[in-house]
């Protein structure tokens, strides 16, 4: 008898719980693991759940190419969640946006987003995603303490930069930290040089996509590889570059063993995790070009959130996107700490307590001295760029040879995309 009662009580409890839960909708969000922004995202989700009768449940995917394969597989298997986090630009375009994702161009929040962001998540007439994190800026992170000790000034031209490097080297410190063990980091000097390339050759992205301009034959484009190699030939870089990891490099910069680290501002979350008390010593400047009045920063476009078409709760998912970019959502986002860059949303007031390096980067954005990285302007990006940049950075090949090799690498990609002119 007693057992029966317990069973009945449990059943009643389950019924009550499920009845209660039935009023609330549930959205499933396929999210990257170990995101630097996860705390901020959790805060937004909590605020959203408090306001609407909608719950959000995370499913996690690895961030590497493993995660890309997973998303492609699940699209092929018609099994997508209600919300998806993904890279903007060419990686996102490959997913066939018009067929697989919900067009957001008629939503009320569409007008809030920066056009430069919308352009990298568009296909045909529609656009398909909202920005999920602040805008990362690519350039050179530097140690302010080292600069103060040696009495150096932030360089505006490449000449001033190398002059600073010479002084740092003479003082017995590493002038430029490179971390070729993680080969993707080798690309930064090359990719972040795009602002300078665009200043010298405004139509480069178009001509390059149309196969009219090449890295090997365009002197301004060749500069990227030359700059990487110059670090090596002038002896600015640390010893054992091939054994230095991304994490090692951050420690060298934070502890002042090295003065410069060519990187984008996405590294700040990681430095803040490991060296929170050193954040005040780290500053940022744009990669210098050849003339002081053309000095600006190359921007990456933020990762995005999109709604797959197969979702059965598109309206609820749209409500969440609307909330995410609303003033309320942004307030929740910033409630757990200052963001590490400017937002791709119009008229956002930045809070107090930004990292000094973030402030430096935002100065360029406010002065409108920015260019998007080439991968957001052209679908053509060769898969072997990291290795080619390492070859340039270790002096294994001349810049001209590297550029020629990269042009060949890019050709395969362009032919696969069946672009006209290739």
């Amino acid at each position, binding site marked *: 008898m007693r057992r029966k009662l317990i069973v009945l009580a449990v059943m009643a409890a389950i019924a009550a719980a499920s009845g209660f839960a039935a009023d609330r909708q549930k959205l499933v969000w396929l999210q990257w693991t170990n995101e630097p922004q996860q705390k901020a995202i959790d805060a937004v989700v909590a605020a959203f759940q408090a306001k609407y009768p909608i719950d959000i449940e995370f499913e996690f995917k690895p961030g590497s190419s493993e995660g890309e394969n997973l998303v492609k597989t699940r699209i*092929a298997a018609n099994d997508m969640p209600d919300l998806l986090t993904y890279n903007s630009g060419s990686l996102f375009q490959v997913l066939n946006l018009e067929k697989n994702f919900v067009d957001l161009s008629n939503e009320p929040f569409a007008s809030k987003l920066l056009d430069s962001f919308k352009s990298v998540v568009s296909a045909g007439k529609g656009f398909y995603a909202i920005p999920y994190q602040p805008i990362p800026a690519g350039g050179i992170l530097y140690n302010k303490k080292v600069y103060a000790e040696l009495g150096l000034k932030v360089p505006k031209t490449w000449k001033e930069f190398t002059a600073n490097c010479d002084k740092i080297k003479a003082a017995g410190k590493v002038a430029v930290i490179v971390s070729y063990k993680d080969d993707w980091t080798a690309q930064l000097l090359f990719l972040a040089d795009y602002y300078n390339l665009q200043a010298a050759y405004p139509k480069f992205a178009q001509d390059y996509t149309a196969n009219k301009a090449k890295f090997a034959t365009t002197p301004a484009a060749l500069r990227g590889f030359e700059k990487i190699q110059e670090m090596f030939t002038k002896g600015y870089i640390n010893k054992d570059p091939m054994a230095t990891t991304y994490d090692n490099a951050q*420690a060298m910069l934070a502890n002042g063993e090295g003065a410069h680290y060519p990187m984008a501002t996405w590294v700040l979350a990681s430095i803040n*995790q490991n060296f929170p008390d050193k954040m005040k010593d780290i500053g940022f400047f744009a990669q210098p070009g050849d003339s002081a009045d053309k000095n600006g920063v190359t921007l990456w476009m933020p990762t995005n959130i999109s709604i797959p078409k197969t979702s059965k709760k598109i309206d609820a998912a749209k409500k969440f996107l609307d909330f995410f970019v609303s003033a309320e959502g942004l307030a929740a986002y910033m409630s757990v700490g200052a963001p590490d860059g400017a937002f791709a949303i119009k008229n956002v007031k930045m809070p107090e307590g930004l990292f000094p390096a973030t402030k430096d980067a935002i100065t360029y954005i406010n002065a409108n001295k920015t260019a998007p990285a080439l991968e957001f302007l052209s679908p053509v990006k060769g898969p072997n760029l990291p290795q080619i940049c390492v070859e340039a950075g270790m002096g294994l090949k001349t810049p001209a040879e590297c550029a020629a090799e990269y042009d060949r690498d890019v050709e395969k990609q362009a032919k696969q995309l069946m672009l006209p002119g290739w």
Partner: protein
Amino acid sequence: MKRKIARLAVETVAVLLALAIFGVPISYVLTNAGKSSAAAAQMSIAPAANTQYLANFSSVIAQSSYMLIRAFLNSAIITIVSIAVLLGISSTAGFVLERRKGRGISWINFLVLAGLMIPPAVVPTIWVLKTIGLYKNMMGLVLVEAALAFPFSVLLYRGYMGSIPRELDEASFIDGCTGFDLFMKVIFPLMKPVSATIAIITSISVFNDFVNPLYFLPGSKNVTVQLTLYNFISTYLNKWNLLFADILLISIPPLIFFIFFNKKIVSGMVAGAVKS
């Protein structure tokens, strides 16, 4: 005497080499699991100045609302059930394939071998699982794991069956056994060593599997232990100390398993090798 010394020297070198090959990575994981995130990011083998094992372990366990505990439970269920399914199917299959002769049998043997040679495809498998309603379900993953290990297990069982004399079958039939009794009461108990080998080898490969759970068992509640490793690494941010602490925690079950059943693995592998 001289020979003895030479042998001793060779043995010492071998032991030292084994220590270096296995000891260095394990001690690396052990030391780094107790460091702070800044110290572990340096990837050094030097011991930590101040260890924080307890803090690291508790934050690994608490990560993503105690995902690791659920993962251990899921992995244990998946491993145990797939072993049960696999042993049941492949032992009976091995028995029949070895005892029966004929044209049909050689075709079936070929199909089993084909299972070893042809790699499984992901999208069609998801489609099949969806059609039978087992996608995102632990039973679905159990079937996938059992199917993937099936060809190899059948080969082992067949090899071992060859060493069990046919006279036993005949004697059992004379004593009044049915075919089913013969298998359950006589053959299966005799195949214990090979069953143990298969159970150990596959349980470790299923427990350590990463790719299959990733593709065939999505869902926030369906995590397995290997998937928890990705909680601590991403492109721009890594928590190496917690990663190593997690590795340490999730390698405990297979380690215990190996220590206890080590002898059985070797005896089972060799058991079917020589036909009498």
